[in-house]
């Protein structure tokens, strides 16, 4: 295989800045929505004492689960040694971080007291899956950053497989942890089931890969590059 070269995205600058502006616009709407909720309280969301967790949790859990799945392509390249996927691996790691940060943001902003995040990071009850997840999520971010570094820095390339394997094991633990949030809710029969952890792992494979493919298709399409059917059909 030829040597990899990392280059900037081959689209015209106005298009690039335009895309960023649109995304910034969406983010500022989200910011205003959050400010509105935080200022008035959760009653504006329609959640209540019976519907305890609502739309924010659907989004947060989806994004977190998709985050670990977005790492699939990198794992295929470095853990399972399929060289063809190597050029696609950095995007995979980057997407994983992005999705996880997005999911955590939603989760944190949904807290009744997001200002007490420092409390969540200094007081732990390790009987709670949530407390474990705080470590699983932040640990995942750190590991994927290191993993990306081993991919992008040629001197570090020899550690890519080790970092990738560790990240792969960690992402399985992370999704198990996320599934266990629901799997251990004994009080609600709709949740209380051991199937939640494996189900979340399977869902993460599907969601994460789907988001990865969509982003990849979009990026190639704007760049007017051919992706090729071979890669797609295999994934």
């Amino acid at each position, binding site marked *: 295989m030829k040597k990899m070269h990392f280059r900037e995205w081959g689209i015209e600058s106005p298009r690039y800045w335009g895309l960023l502006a649109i995304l910034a616009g969406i983010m500022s709407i989200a910011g205003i929505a959050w400010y509105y909720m935080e200022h008035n309280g959760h009653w504006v969301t329609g959640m209540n004492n019976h519907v305890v967790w609502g739309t924010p949790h659907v989004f947060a859990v989806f994004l977190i689960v998709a985050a670990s799945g977005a790492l699939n392509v990198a794992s295929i390249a470095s853990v399972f040694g399929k060289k063809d996927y190597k050029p696609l691996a950095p995007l995979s790691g980057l997407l994983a971080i992005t999705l996880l940060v997005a999911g955590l943001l939603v989760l944190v902003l949904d*807290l009744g007291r997001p200002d*007490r995040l420092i409390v969540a990071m200094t007081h732990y009850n390790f009987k709670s899956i949530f407390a474990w997840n705080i470590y699983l999520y932040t640990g995942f971010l750190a590991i994927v950053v290191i993993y990306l570094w081993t991919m992008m820095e040629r001197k570090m390339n020899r550690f890519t497989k080790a970092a990738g394997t560790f990240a792969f094991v960690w992402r399985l633990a992370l999704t198990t942890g996320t599934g266990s949030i629901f799997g251990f809710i004994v009080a609600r029969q709709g949740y209380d089931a051991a199937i939640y952890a494996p189900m979340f792992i399977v869902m993460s494979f599907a969601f994460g890969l789907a988001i990865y493919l969509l982003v990849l298709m979009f990026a190639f399409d704007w760049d007017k590059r051919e992706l090729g059917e071979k890669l797609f059909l295999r994934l």
Partner: protein
Amino acid sequence: MSDKTNLARRNFLSKLPAAAATAAIAPGAVLHSKDASSAPRSEPVTSKVRWGMLVDANKCADGCSACVEACNKENGLDIHTNPAGADVDSTKWDQQKPVWMRSVKLKDLQSGKITNLPMMCQHCEHPPCQDVCPTGASFRRADGVVLVDRHTCIGCRYCMMACPYKARSFIHENVDIKPTLAPRGKGCVESCTFCVHRLDNGQTTTACQDACAKEGHHAIIFGDLNDPESQVAKALEKYPNQQIRDDLKLNPGVHYTGI
């Protein structure tokens, strides 16, 4: 001008560093030791006592809500109002406002028998809310009262998901009036405290129990489950009773009879 040195000033200056150090390092310790003799509430509660309750559903009258009203009044839930700007859709507010005690009506579809009972925090021996709380804000006191530490609650509401009794409420809105006995603020979770402010002041009844007795129903008996001479222990021995969702093996402090 006198030759006498002003000792008051000198004493003041010499004591200043010690006072400053005390104020900076150990205000809690000094305040605590000064308070120790004044009231028993400065001593930690022990597991010698386990507060609990027996609810006699046979005596719980249909249409009576004295216990719920007394609870609301005692804990300032009655002065908690619909947030400004909210629509007047009362069903929405009914589901969002904090409720510590609910009046539940059950109907047996086969026999048609109607049962009324109050439902609130069951003060479990093994509370699921305590297990799932990421910060340890949900906790169980040694004397069996399950509480929320409002200083460490981050409002994640996992405890509400984990409670089999739907006993907990989240404060969805800004709070204008903060009652001394049950101060509340937006974004934290709370629930029945077994009127812990009364227990800590040496009283042995809850507001709901008093209200029920005042109505003449006497459906609620509260007391120390560990004391075989207590009214509640005697009643538990006398009447067949059960704990709700006893399949979960949480050993709630609240028992029911006649359900």
